[in-house]
């Protein structure tokens, strides 16, 4: 007892200090609380921010987008849940807002929302849809579709000012290796640098390299460089390898995407909110925030990317007399985040000893560069405004 008495002034001090620190922490760190609860007739999502709430809601076929205006970072507190209707949550960050994506387990749902004060809460109730809301959904879709096609028409007539060349691999990561020890990273860099020189000599455009020495650059950063430099075209250069000994020839790839309705709609929404697309990779990329944007940037340019792949491949086939392996689509990591027409060219097979030998020679590298340059010229003449 005696001990405690003596300590009272100390305890009071400590209490005051702790109280102050609680207050200051909650002021510095805004947060948003997300709760999910099932009721008999509906599932309820409650969004409770510690900051003034300003929001817009947009409905998709199996998700709801809630755009929350805030230009400072905040923490998200999410209760674990198990719901009949709500599947999951995703976050996309814009310049001065976040988009909360509420994915539903059912395709046709309707929703209702209201705002409560003290503390501020946005309450959204989800239930299975009746026919009327389904009709609305369809109209909504066609509006988004037209917005989507408008966007892609615009981008195809853009003037080309900046071209980003991306020599594949580099540094610690050699890529594929030939029987005679040729490394993909070296071939890609040699061809990339030659290509840059030829473009700069002949076209009034700026050429930016994602790397111009033997260094490691992450796949995400390659896309980030392209977007930061406001690239109008992105060309990634690689040398191929296959488990088939006879594989030979060049190939041009552009990104494939899953043909899902949800993604197309999400994309259309993002295109109508271009500020989201302008926000770069990096900054605070918290793991738990789904960067839908960076998974989707390239999806907006698939048509142009396929045309670029086609014009490049045509010239490669013609000049190198390589067998036409044509253009292909595949989910290449380096292309997903690039916000302009983007292709990945596999100039030849380093795994094929004949082609490996050729890849090492100056004349073959120069031929490849000439083909790439002609293809590029054709693309610019045919598909862009000058």
């Amino acid at each position, binding site marked *: *007892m005696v001990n*405690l*008495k003596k300590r*009272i002034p100390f*305890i*009071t001090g*400590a*209490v005051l200090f*702790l*109280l102050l*620190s*609680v207050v200051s*922490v*909650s002021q510095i*760190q805004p*947060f948003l*609380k*997300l709760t999910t609860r099932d009721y008999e007739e509906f599932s309820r999502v409650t969004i409770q921010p510690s900051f003034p709430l300003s929001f817009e809601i947009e409905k998709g076929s199996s998700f709801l987008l809630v755009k929350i205006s805030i230009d400072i970072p905040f*923490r*998200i*507190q*999410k209760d*674990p849940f198990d719901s009949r209707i709500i599947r*999951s*949550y995703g*976050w996309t960050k814009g310049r001065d807002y976040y988009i909360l994506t509420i994915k539903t387990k059912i395709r046709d749902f309707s929703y209702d929302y209201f705002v409560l004060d003290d503390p501020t809460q946005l309450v959204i109730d989800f239930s299975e849809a009746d026919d009327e809301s389904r009709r609305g959904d369809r109209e909504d879709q066609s509006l988004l579709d037209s917005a989507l096609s408008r966007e892609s028409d615009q981008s195809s007539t853009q003037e080309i000012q900046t071209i980003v060349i991306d020599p594949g*691999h580099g540094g610690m*990561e050699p*890529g*594929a290796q030939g029987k005679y020890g040729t490394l*993909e990273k070296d071939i890609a860099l040699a061809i990339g640098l030659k290509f840059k020189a030829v473009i700069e000599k002949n076209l009034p455009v700026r050429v930016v390299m994602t790397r111009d020495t033997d260094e490691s650059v992450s*796949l995400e950063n390659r896309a980030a460089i392209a977007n930061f430099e406001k690239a109008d075209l992105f060309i990634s250069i*690689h*040398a*191929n*390898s*296959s*488990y*088939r*000994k*006879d*594989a030979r020839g060049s*190939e041009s*790839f552009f990104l494939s995407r*899953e043909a899902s309705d949800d993604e197309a709609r999400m994309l259309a929404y993002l295109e109508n909110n271009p500020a989201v697309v302008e926000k770069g990779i990096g900054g605070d990329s*918290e793991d*738990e925030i789904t960067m839908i944007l960076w*998974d989707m940037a390239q999806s907006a340019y698939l048509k142009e990317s396929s045309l670029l792949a086609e014009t490049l491949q045509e010239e490669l086939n013609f000049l190198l007399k390589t067998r036409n*392996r044509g253009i292909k689509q*595949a*989910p*290449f*990591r*380096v292309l*997903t985040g690039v916000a302009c027409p983007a292709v*990945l060219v*596999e100039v030849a*097979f*380093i*795994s094929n000893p004949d082609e490996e030998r050729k890849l090492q020679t100056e004349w073959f590298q120069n031929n490849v560069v000439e083909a790439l340059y002609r293809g590029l010229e054709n693309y610019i003449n045919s598909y862009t405004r000058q």
Partner: protein
Amino acid sequence: MDRKRVAILGILFVVLVVLVIVFFKSGLKEKIIPAAPISPPEVEPLRLQPGQTRIVILFFLSENDTLLHPEEREIPADTSVVHQAKQTIQELIKGSRRGFISPFPPETKLRELYVTDEGVAYVDFSKDIVEKHLSGSSAEISTIFSVVNSLAYNFNSIEKVFILIEGRERETLGGHINLSRPFLPLYDLIAQ
């Protein structure tokens, strides 16, 4: 108020404050928890007869073209889908019996395989599939889609395939194809 009461009140206050702090701090530290990607393996009624077998189709490469070529394999069918799917992948990485080319480093091992309620198969390979891989775009595409097609083609409950390495998500096998999203099968790659 006597001193005893003051002391008790003081203690109670401190306890309260500590509780408040613990509550707030833990709340603030809490991050959004991604929805658990893996739900428990499918529980299926084992109505199947013991000793029963089924034919599955495996997909391999051929020297003749760039396509994936089917090869039949008989596996036990008296087990769950997860078990059958595991067996299918194990047979696939063992390689062809008809001279087709296997798009896997021979050291590759299947570590684990789960299937979620939503039809996503998580296939977990040993690190050999990365470390011993040829690392070219074509090589990656054939490795990935021989797995994806072999699973989606044979099992109705598998719609998509997510590839893990040593239990973890990986960006790519060798710098090309994106492993951070599940794959849908690509039946265009299959030879007729």
